[in-house]
């Protein structure tokens, strides 16, 4: 078990199972198919992300360095939140990027979704956390990986 302290982008607490990628998470490429064709588990459809391809991320603790790709990214994430197909929380190793941040802020201001988003957890976090670990997010931005 290990604790990591990050910066709160959107607040909240939760517990969820970790799904981890060390590559950039391409929001549009990953989620468009799931949103379009009724996949409530939100299986990742990004052919370039070999760690996540085919894995469901809805309700999981998505651990990632950052998101990449098309600038539809934020609205795709916002739609996923409104449609309840979003990760339970998003935990960034790096500082959050502008697209993921837009999605998190839009969901926070314009929807009832509660998706804690923590960034700057560091490379050590991404090195430590593994698929299937239990993740707990605390109110002060502490993330416990077990």
């Amino acid at each position: 078990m290990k604790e990591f302290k990050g910066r709160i982008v959107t607040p909240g607490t939760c517990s969820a199972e970790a799904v981890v990628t060390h590559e950039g998470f391409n929001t549009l490429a990953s989620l468009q198919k799931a949103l379009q064709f009724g996949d409530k588990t939100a299986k990742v459809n990004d052919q370039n992300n070999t760690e996540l391809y085919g894995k469901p991320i809805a309700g999981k603790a998505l651990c990632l360095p950052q998101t990449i790709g098309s600038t539809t990214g934020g609205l795709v994430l916002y739609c996923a939140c409104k449609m309840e197909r979003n990760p339970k929380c998003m935990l960034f190793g790096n500082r959050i990027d502008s697209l993921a941040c837009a999605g998190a802020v839009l969901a926070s201001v314009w929807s009832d979704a509660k998706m804690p988003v923590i960034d700057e957890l560091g490379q050590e976090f991404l090195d430590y956390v593994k698929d299937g670990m239990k993740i707990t997010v605390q109110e002060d931005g502490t993330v416990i990986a077990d």
Partner: protein
Amino acid sequence: MELTVEQKAILNGEKGETLAKVMKTLVMYGEAFDASKMVPVTSDYNHLVTSFGLGVMDPVYELMDTLLKEGVSSSQKFTVDPRPLDPNVPSGFLQNLVFKRFMYNKQEFYEKQLQKLGLLEKDAFTCTCYMSEVGNRPNYGDVLSWSESSAVVYANSVLGARCNRNSGIIDIMGSIVGYVPYFGLLTDEGRKADWIIRIETSKKPEAQLLGSAIGMKVMEDVPYVIGLDRWLGNELNEEACTYLKDFGAATASNGAVGLYHIDGLTPEAKKLGKKLIKENAKEYVITDETLQEVYDNYPIIWKDKDAKPKLCFMGCPHMSLQQLKDWTDVIEENLNRYDNPQVLIPTVFTAAPAVIKEFKKTEYYPRLEKTGIILSYICPLMYMNNPLCAKMPVITSSNKLRTYTTSRYYTDEEIVMQLCKGDR
């Protein structure tokens, strides 16, 4: 973040609850990046990424409706990304049913929303809004609230405008309040390069491959590219701009690049030179081998890897007028060389409606028609994103299309050989 009296008044709801929520969104967005203030948007027009009336994107249309009902509209007119449908593009009965009934069943509704919000003109749908024929071309130093990754990277790098990689919805919100948070690529510091990229190839590198290699390496960082002016020259002429359009789109989609500098060519690199490079910038050397390795590592996710291609898409981002002319020459010449009257794979070239209009006035248009190639304003990416098209073996020389769909990437030269000679 320090706000002016006017900005504070909007945030406090003095101009209505909806406008207050719009301002709150932008302030929260800026605060996540330690923005010190909000600055005025100075470009003539905005550009939005959301062009598609996808039934499942209901939350977006609901939000737009909320804005319209409250009488909120954009202070700037705007262009939008390409439409997802065009009857000119080949599609079967089942595809048409899926497209119109299930996927883009909100297209008409959404286009009406866009017109009410401030669409520049009814056909202002393209990802290359900066083409002179389209007319949404910001000036050097303009502050933008644009989205569309390929347009943002072009505006920042080639035109010297200032824009962050804004997401859809955030784009229109900047236009509504007339301000954007001051951080990242809007600041002098944020425009400095974290990487030096040295081009040491033996020939002019394929734009789409080079962009892909750099994007995957630097991710969201700013690269300063040295040695590319050897191949592109030192003037931003039509040829160089077209190259940079395709190169930039690949850096933005294969990574998350919002700005690049090309030594001796792009405006800030010409003005400030190597002063743009941060201390301790990392280095990446690109050789012929690097590009070959990047190419060889693209996953091929066709079920039958040896399948005969059923469709070829060219023009993601949309082609320029010159590109359409050049491709007409190349295709015509190679069809003659290999003694084929028309292209051997159904092929679609895509460009902005305004560019197509101009192209149709030239003598090239009937020549292109003769080759069997279809000209369309469609967004290939949106066309491809459904289970029916996803199973189709589609080829392209667009690295953006490869990234987001099941299409398979080939270099321009390989595409020509497949279309004109029948090479596989």
